[in-house]
């Protein structure tokens, strides 16, 4: 199938931004703050980061917020009234500047939220989002997208994928979906026709570091290995890896009351926390960190591929970068591949 290719001049990006803003789109883009690049509501083009390899956190907030109301209630003498959340009038959002590993993660996250039961809260939010992916011109030692079936110019998950062609160059824009076409129709002059075949040579080179099929198969027999204990000795059981990950979806549901009314809130949680599986009786099926570390790897590389036919990892490397004690998932996976059973 032929992809619709366009040329977007480097000065046109700011013009595109302004036009989209005029069309009342919210734009989430990466900005540098305190030395870390994170997604913010962008009021203007100035300051949007392009030189970073990866943002500290993923963009999953856009469809799966860290804290969101899922219903409101109020008690009065007429009785109890419970209302769902109206997500019909959400403004359109442009997710500007996600890397291909994040864009692919949107698909993986969507599999969880649509497995059997369809989570319409998530789906509604996602339907308002247009994804502007930006290919990677460089990578670092934490990246391993190519080991999990991805690549630095992967189009999966993006509505438009921009590839910068050379330092300070113009952009190849691949229009991949109808949502992408809608954006082009808002600013047609900025998207010139292009027949270029040159994309590969501007992409980062990310060597394949492990064979993910081999690892998934090996994990089936790996449950009792002592390797989990050795790998997780320095893990402190925080939630940093789960929270920055584009495909981690574990959540908690909390009620918050303010007098006679309140709401039910869904918020992020992590299987790495010691109390994640704690029963009220005091019994904890995973009461040592090695069991929790094992759950993280097994879930992403064994259980999810088996049940949902998608990988639970996009190779973005954020977890390793964010980890306060340098738990490097790439290193751990290579080590699993190398261990003889």
């Amino acid at each position: 199938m032929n992809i619709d290719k366009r040329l977007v001049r480097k000065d046109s990006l700011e013009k595109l931004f302004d036009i989209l803003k005029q069309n009342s789109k919210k734009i989430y883009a990466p900005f540098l703050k305190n030395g870390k690049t994170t997604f913010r509501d962008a009021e203007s083009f100035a300051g949007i980061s392009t030189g970073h390899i990866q943002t500290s956190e993923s963009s999953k907030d856009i469809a799966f917020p860290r804290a969101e109301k899922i219903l409101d209630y109020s008690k009065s003498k007429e009785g109890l009234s419970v209302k769902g959340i109206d997500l019909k009038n959400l403004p359109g959002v442009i997710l500007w500047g996600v890397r291909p590993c994040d864009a692919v993660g949107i698909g993986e996250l969507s599999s969880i939220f649509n497995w059997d039961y369809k989570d319409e809260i998530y789906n509604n939010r996602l339907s308002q989002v247009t994804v502007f992916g930006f290919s990677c011109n460089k990578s670092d030692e934490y990246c391993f997208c190519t080991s999990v079936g991805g690549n630095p110019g992967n189009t999966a998950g993006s509505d438009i994928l921009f590839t910068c062609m050379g330092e300070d160059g113009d952009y190849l824009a691949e229009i991949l979906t109808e949502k992408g076409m809608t954006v082009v129709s808002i600013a047609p002059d900025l998207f010139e026709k292009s027949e270029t075949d040159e994309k590969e040579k501007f992409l980062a080179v990310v060597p394949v570091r492990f064979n993910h099929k081999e690892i998934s198969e090996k994990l089936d027999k790996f449950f009792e290995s002592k390797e989990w204990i050795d790998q997780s000795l320095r893990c402190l059981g925080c939630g940093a890896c789960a929270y920055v990950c584009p495909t981690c979806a574990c959540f908690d549901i909390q009620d918050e009351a303010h007098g006679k009314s309140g709401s039910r809130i869904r918020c992020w949680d992590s299987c790495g926390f010691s109390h994640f599986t704690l029963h009220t009786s005091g019994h904890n099926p995973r009461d040592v960190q090695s069991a929790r570390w094992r759950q993280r790897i097994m879930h992403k590389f064994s259980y999810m591929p088996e049940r949902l036919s998608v990988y639970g990892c996009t190779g973005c490397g954020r977890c390793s970068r964010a980890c306060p004690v340098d738990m490097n998932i790439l290193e751990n996976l290579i080590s699993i591949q190398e261990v003889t059973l």
Partner: protein
Amino acid sequence: MMDNLYMPYPMRIERITYEAPGVKTFMLKFVNEADQDKFSYRAGQFGEYSVYGVGESTFCIASTPTRKGYIECTFRQTGKVTNALSGCEEGSIIGFRGPYGNVFPIDEWKGKSLLFIAGGIALPPMRCVIWNALDLRENFKDVTIIYGARTVKDLVYKDELKDWELRKDVKLVTTVDPGGESPDWSGEIGFVPTIVEKIAPSSKDTIAIVCGPPVMIKYTFPVLAKLGFADENIYTTLENRMKCGFGKCGRCNVGKLYVCKDGPVFSLAQLKELPDEY
């Protein structure tokens, strides 16, 4: 209005039964008749019961689907939500999400004998399938119920135990732990696994359904094995920490299965394939 997976049905507490110290049964009816008409469930399934402003808690549906118009749940006051539920009165409105989970394969058990073994607060998850079987009594050969609790006071469904005892088509054996008997106690005295061994029910053409605290389960399975029960013919229902009930929040993921979707009913054969994380 879009379908909100998290929106509970409003339920009125029709009747509260005090079962044992800290243990209550709620009979719940749908506030909206339209919800009642559309609702159906099967024995083994569970729900998430809400007290708005406090939270949700997971209990099995303890009533049988053969009796329409209401559902029941039995719970022990242990934590934040069960404490709040315990404070509700008849007539209060609470929330219910469900039914979730898989079912006891009661259709496959037609023509067989049924052996129910339960301990303490674990009788409620089995009550649904016991009454389901008794309402379809002609489908099964022998029905034996072995139920024990720590003390006489801790036995739940005391009135129903009397019903089952009087029925000629049910063999009921009740027991309390040594030291838990009252002066007028006429049942057995001993831990449930010990009593199962003593009664030695036949394993021929029999399905065993077992539910109880981890320590009881641990000692009951070997007894059943000794009596000749195959792993595929022993069933249990797992209690895990759950939140969403439909396989998304991740809490009840054990191995490749989710207790809320692939369970909570499992055969022993299935359980043995799972990692010991439940």
